[in-house]
């Protein structure tokens, strides 16, 4: 198969085990994103794929050639991959053009030059070709780094947090441009990031790497968001509302109504996690649902975050995302219901639930 195959990769720095039997497949032309919290070993995995770190366990195959296993280590310069570093790592003593030419080992000088100019054209940096990296803005450096990585026509592109160095207002644009360039090149790309939004935007497929170093879930962005298989995955996208409850007849009762738990046995202690957009507020006369009282609202622009409390007096606060124009001053008699697309049921952990006999989840 063309593309990248990583499997069974475990890695430790001394006693610090960072990767645990990680497997990733990136077919040719696809963009797979490895998403996980800081320090979970994402950069380590990329460095292993590039050969910058010596593999300890598992194997790495690029375009059907084993480049790393317990008997083989192909040096990075022989792997023909592109690597874009988090800090871009542009060579400060070379100008933009020479940075891009640097990787075109073995091609004639004039060929390399015209190819480099082509690449710079693709990323819109031809005008800056003779400048030195430190005179460029973050976004421009990012583009040069991308051009430099792609210029030698690598078999595989590795991106380490490619947008983390950019300020927010620039990030969205550069992200879009980068995706455009990558799709045009059709190079197999493995990108790592800790930013779920970035991953969802860019990726054909997302793999979630947990902080204990193993893969928790692998799926399309949509599936990751709407069908998280793991509490950790559900919580990656921000604030969650939580009710603890027990499964009865494959249903879980919460103060805001019941949620289906089709694969769970009766009597299991569970937590119900509901995204802020999964609580629906209505304030017209024949609204149904549980009465809540409003605590405060925070307008974010594209939506509101509304803090409410159950009218029944329970002290727990709920966070609700409201997408339409919402003026709390005009709201009266607010009722809340759950949109089950955004509500997820997970068994409680042993420590948290207290009782261990009820834990083993779906079976």
């Amino acid at each position, binding site marked *: 198969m063309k593309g990248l195959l990583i499997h069974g990769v475990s890695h430790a720095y001394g006693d610090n085990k960072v990767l645990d039997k990680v497997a990733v497949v990136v077919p040719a032309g696809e963009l797979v994103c490895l998403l996980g919290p800081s320090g979970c070993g994402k950069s380590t995995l990329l460095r292993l794929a590039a050969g910058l770190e010596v593999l300890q366990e598992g194997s790495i195959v690029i375009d059907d*050639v*084993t480049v790393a296993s317990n008997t*083989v*280590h192909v040096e990075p*310069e022989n792997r023909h991959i592109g690597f874009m570093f988090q800090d871009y790592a*542009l060579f400060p003593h070379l100008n933009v053009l020479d940075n891009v030419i*640097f990787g075109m*080992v073995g091609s004639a000088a004039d060929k390399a030059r015209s190819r480099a100019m082509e690449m710079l054209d693709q990323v819109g940096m031809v005008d800056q070709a003779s400048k030195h990296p430190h005179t460029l803005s973050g976004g421009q450096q990012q583009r040069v780094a991308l051009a430099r990585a792609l210029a030698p026509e690598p078999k595989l592109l590795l991106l380490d947090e490619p947008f983390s160095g950019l300020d927010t207002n620039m990030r969205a644009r550069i992200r879009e441009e980068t995706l455009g360039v990558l799709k045009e090149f059709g190079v197999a790309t493995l990108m790592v990031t800790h930013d779920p939004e970035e991953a969802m935007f860019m990726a054909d497929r997302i793999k979630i790497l947990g902080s204990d170093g193993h893969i928790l879930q692998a799926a399309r962005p949509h599936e990751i968001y709407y069908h998280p298989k793991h509490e950790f995955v559900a919580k990656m996208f921000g604030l969650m509302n939580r009710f603890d409850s027990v499964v009865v007849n494959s249903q879980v009762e919460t103060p805001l109504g019941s949620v289906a738990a089709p694969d769970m046995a009766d009597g299991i202690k569970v937590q119900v996690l509901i995204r802020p957009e999964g609580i629906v507020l209505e304030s017209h006369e024949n609204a149904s649902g549980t009465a809540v009282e409003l605590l405060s609202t925070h307008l974010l622009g594209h939506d509101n975050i509304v803090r409410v409390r159950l009218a029944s007096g329970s002290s727990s606060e709920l966070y609700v995302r409201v997408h339409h124009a919402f003026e709390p001053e005009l709201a009266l008699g607010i009722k809340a219901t759950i949109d089950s697309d955004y509500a997820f049921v997970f068994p409680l952990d042993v420590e948290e639930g207290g009782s261990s006999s009820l834990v083993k989840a779906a079976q």
Partner: protein
Amino acid sequence: MTASPTLAGSTERRLKIDGWTLGTAAISMAVMLPIVAVVIIAFTPGDDIWGHLTSTVLPLYIATTVQLMVGVGVGTFLIGVGGAWLVTIYRFPGKRFFEWALLLPMAMPAYVIAYVYTDVLEYAGPVQGALRHLFGWTSIQQYWFPEIRSLGGAISMMTLVLYPYVYLLSRAAFLEQSVGVLEASRVLGRSQWQSFYSVALPLARPAIVIGLSLVLMETLNDFGTVDFFAVYTFTLGIFDVWMNMSNIAGAAQLASLMLLFVIALVLAERFARRKKRFHQTTTTYKELPGYELGGFKGLLAVVVCALPVVLGFVLPSIVLSTYAVLHFDKEVVSQMLETAGNSLLLSGTAAMIAVIVAIFMAYGVRIKGSPVLKVMTRIAALGYAVPGSVLAVGVIAVLASLDNSIDGFMRENFGVSTGLLFSGTVVAVIFGYLVRFLALSFGTVEASLTKITPNMDGAARTLGHGPFETLRRVHMPLMKTSILTAAMLVFVDGMKELPLTIILRPFNFQTLATYVHQFASDEQLGEASLAALAIVGTGIIPVILLSLMIRKSRPGHEIT
């Protein structure tokens, strides 16, 4: 198992012969050899003179060495820390000038000012002459005058030229301290003096300890001064036992005993460095307060700062220049040029090799990251702490056995005797310099290498360049300035070097340092003053560079 196809250029991981690891290990070992040799010789039974040594001269050597170290330690501490505190915290006339001028005595080898002051202060010299003339004395019995050729004299000479190490490091430490800490201390009701004593000094202690340990290493290393003043330290003892008693084993035994002193210093220095990392937490800079010192206090500050500069640099330079002018003739100049040529050859070659070796070692450790390799390079870089006389013993031993084995091999296989190939040649001197000064080039190169992010390596490697190409095309250009600095440091120290050179040089081969030493020992400083000036002139280069670096490292400037 059906093996997947592998690429050309891939290596079987298990049987990898790794040039970088081997090379780095080999070089480290070569540099470690002389030190190891000293210890081995010392513990080789046989010609054992321990008993003899302990009952005779050893107690004297120990007592003298300890007294010298204590004296120089206290002296350099007072002048170095005091000067640094004055120019860092206070404002007074000439403060900007003294900031760098206080470094000048660094250019002056201790033995040079020892010759100068002896010449000036001895009975027949101008000072006592003038005093006798003034007061009408006619003989030494009529008045008291301090004897310069004494332990006290040696302490003074070394203090005058070595305090800049303490000054440099403690000043850097004071600059690093956030003003906030000092101001907080003042606000909390401490006086300036109390703030210095209870806040600034403890915070700067690690840096001061490093400075002091450098000073004491130099003190242990000194040969010229103690030889001239007949102050029986270990170094002089080693020369004595070796040259006058022709007892190499005895010299080695003394040398290995002396290593204990060195080890203590190195440990103290390492310990202080560890603490230093801990202390360097503040990154926010603010222009230091600059308390104004006016009137009498200001004048006092000027005098305090001027005294070491005048005594340690200005006065000796004037004296040397005067002598040089008085003794200026063709003969002196041609002699000076010839010896200077030798010095240039030795120091230049040593500097070049030391830099190449340092780059190789530092880069080898960087790309291989093996802890064993790291420790080996650390040990290899310890040569700087080992006194020249001790190293000389080791270098001779190593080269002699190398010569012998080559000779034996050649005789056995080809029937020719090669004799002494390396012993007593410039190769021996250059090897000695390399062992002793590698720390300078290695430290400089390594520091600059760590400033290059590993992602630079990663980028170059993934862009298709091997480790060597990466070094050549990325790291070397980025380290250009540091590489030059490293070469310069080794070069200048080589020009000043005396004990190693005296022992290891070929017969009748003079460098500037040995030339000055020889003539000054014969009370003919005048003839050698031009050569001495040449040494001082070379020594000024790093002082200028250092003061430029201090300028640049000010808040808002970046060292490149």
